[in-house]
């Protein structure tokens, strides 16, 4: 029974990691043929480095993901605080709308925003991408921060207010420090979602601002390209490093 269980776990992990392992190994392949191993080479990394359009797209993606994550972390945190602390009209409707955004398929959100941008005459590019990405990241930040807010003892807040702190002082010195890890987690989630998004971006992107996933999409749609292997390996390494760094900082807190 025991070996069966462990064997099964091993098999699932193998399935999860085999494709990624193949990508990484073949990124060092000397051959143009993506299926036959012909010795070590860094050729594809060199090509990657020379591909200016790709580097530009990667830079654009990082800019977009960090700004979208920051903006949605900011608005999402404020929203979570409002939903948790204040009573206001239409709170249930607002909750419902956030839930709808989280649960509706990306493609539905994407076309609705495309129609909006065209109608309002918003030029498709960085701005339209930013607005769209913030919109689909928001609910995830709200949920993450709200969970943290409901998890701690609300009497701390009452105590701060009773001791004479203004609402603003209380927010700054008590509430924000407490929820800060959740805000960071929300930021990280938004950053990942934004960096990974293909479905929404393809609709609201414009010729002036190309993002990495769409660049990769046009590369892999037709045939296989060894440069993509090298790119995937670089991305994997970067996200691993980012993950380790975030774990390190969270553990130190």
């Amino acid at each position, binding site marked *: 029974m025991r070996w069966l269980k462990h064997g099964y776990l091993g098999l699932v992990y193998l399935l*999860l990691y085999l494709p*990624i392992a193949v990508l990484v190994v073949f990124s060092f392949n000397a051959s143009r043929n993506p299926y036959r191993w012909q010795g070590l080479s860094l050729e594809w990394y060199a090509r990657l480095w020379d591909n200016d359009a790709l580097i530009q797209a990667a830079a654009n993606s990082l800019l977009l993901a960090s700004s979208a994550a920051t903006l949605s972390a900011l608005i999402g945190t404020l929203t979570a605080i409002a939903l948790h602390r204040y009573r206001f009209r239409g709170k249930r409707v607002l909750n419902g709308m956030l839930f709808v955004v989280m649960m509706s398929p990306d493609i539905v959100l994407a076309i609705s925003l495309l129609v*909006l941008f065209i109608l309002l005459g918003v030029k498709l590019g960085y701005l339209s991408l930013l607005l769209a990405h913030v919109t689909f990241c*928001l609910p995830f930040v709200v949920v993450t921060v709200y969970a943290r807010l409901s998890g701690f003892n609300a009497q701390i807040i009452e105590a701060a207010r009773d001791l004479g702190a203004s609402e603003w002082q209380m927010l700054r010195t008590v509430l924000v420090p407490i929820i800060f890890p959740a805000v960071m987690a929300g930021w990280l989630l938004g950053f990942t979602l934004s960096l*990974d998004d293909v479905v929404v971006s393809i609709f609201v992107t414009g010729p002036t601002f190309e993002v990495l996933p769409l660049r990769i999409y046009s590369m892999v749609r037709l045939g296989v390209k060894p440069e993509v292997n090298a790119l995937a390996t670089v991305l994997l390494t970067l996200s691993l490093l980012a993950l380790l760094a975030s774990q390190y900082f969270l553990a130190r807190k």
Partner: protein
Amino acid sequence: MKLRAPFRTGVVALIWAWMLLFVFLPNLLVIAASFLVRDDVHFVRLEGSLQSYARLLDPVYASVFLDSLGMALTTTLACLLIGYPFAYAVSRLPARVKPLLIFLVILPFWTNSLVRTYAMKLLLATNGLVNQALLGVGIVEQPLRMLYTEGAVIAGLVYVLLPFMILPLYAVFEQLRADLLEVSSDLGAQPWRTFRYVVLPLTMPGVLAGCLLVLIPAVGMFYVADVLGGAKHLLIGNVIKNQFLDARDWPFGAAASILLTLAMALLLYAYYLSARMVRRRSGDDALA
């Protein structure tokens, strides 16, 4: 109290404005567009019509819709069958290895899903590694045609979406009290009966949540169908994307999107009903 009111008003106004402008209004526009007529210059002409909905009934599109739903459901079932025993097995391991094992499930999620889809393509191609392995071992004589089939699309979807199934299942298994299983077997229940009447009802919320988290993205991930299914095996997402970006038929794309939304809303409602039922039942007997 001085700052409370302006701060509160400001925050509430900001989030309301954002949701109205970027969620409510756009969806209203899509609904409106679906009842209009396509126009080559301005995308839509202000002329009421039900022709887009009528076209959805066209056997060509109806079959794409059903096929796509079928692929998404098969993907969900496959994820459940792989993920359920997996989440159970991980949850029964010693506490010190569990975080690492779950971290290893989340890690692929951090690689771009497009890149992972591409990795599947490398494996499944006619001269790809799976075929090379099968030929090498001698299981097959001719390379199998795996790429550009419905199976390839489903395999890609399962690969990309599996973590979304495993995580909620793991969460419910973590909360499943081991003593309940002991009680059940002490009272003479066979393992199958314990599973059927204790484990399954208690883990149902995780099953339902996981199924939704897999099913909802699965209908829309047009790039998986593009890369692994070629032009033949389309998802609803491909149809909507083609109408908006290639054919420029907004009303038809909008109608397809509304049909998709309705189908998903129905599923969410079913989820809500069954979750309520599970809560009531588990509240009554299993945890009493």
